[in-house]
């Protein structure tokens, strides 16, 4: 799924930022967000509120999430 995320990041550059978090290293962030499985994708708006949460790799769902975040 990493290439898919890279492609979408370039496609939505300037509208949606991407922050990659290693769940084994940044354990505090993982626990704060309630991460149960990887990969997990969480979309936040500009105020930090959760827009959408996805578990597992689904390119179509990921693209839809990018579009939703860009419009928020």
């Amino acid at each position, binding site marked *: 799924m990493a290439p898919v995320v890279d492609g979408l990041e370039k496609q939505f550059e300037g509208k949606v930022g991407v922050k990659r978090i290693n769940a084994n290293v940044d354990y505090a962030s993982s626990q704060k967000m309630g991460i149960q499985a*990887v990969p997990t994708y969480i*979309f936040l*708006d*500009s*105020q930090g509120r959760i827009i959408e949460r996805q578990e597992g790799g689904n390119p179509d769902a990921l693209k839809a999430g990018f579009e939703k*975040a860009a419009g928020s």
Partner: protein
Amino acid sequence: MMSRCEWCGESLFDSGPPAGDGTASGGQVHAQPPYDGYGPPGEPPSGLPPSEWGHGAPPGPRPPAGGGGRDPWYMSPWPYVAGILILLAAVGALFLFKGKATSYPDLVVNGRATLLDFYTDT
């Protein structure tokens, strides 16, 4: 001298000597059964009707049954309306506070919408 029943005033007659087999007999009895219900006929000693004999009912008129014609509270719609309104207010407050609690501004990148990509090395 003929005896008379204290309750009904009927005359009594002697039924004869006891049977001797343990059964209740003998003594002075009525010529006929003094009543065919649950109380002796005639005027009771206390002046109360038969339904009040032995119960010791207080004097005075009886109170009306059913609370004087008023419906009980569960027959009115207002307690149910109030309960539904309280429930809706509680659910609404839950959603309101839930939305305000989940916010992570420290994870936002450059003040714009952000994707958090949680991964592992394995």
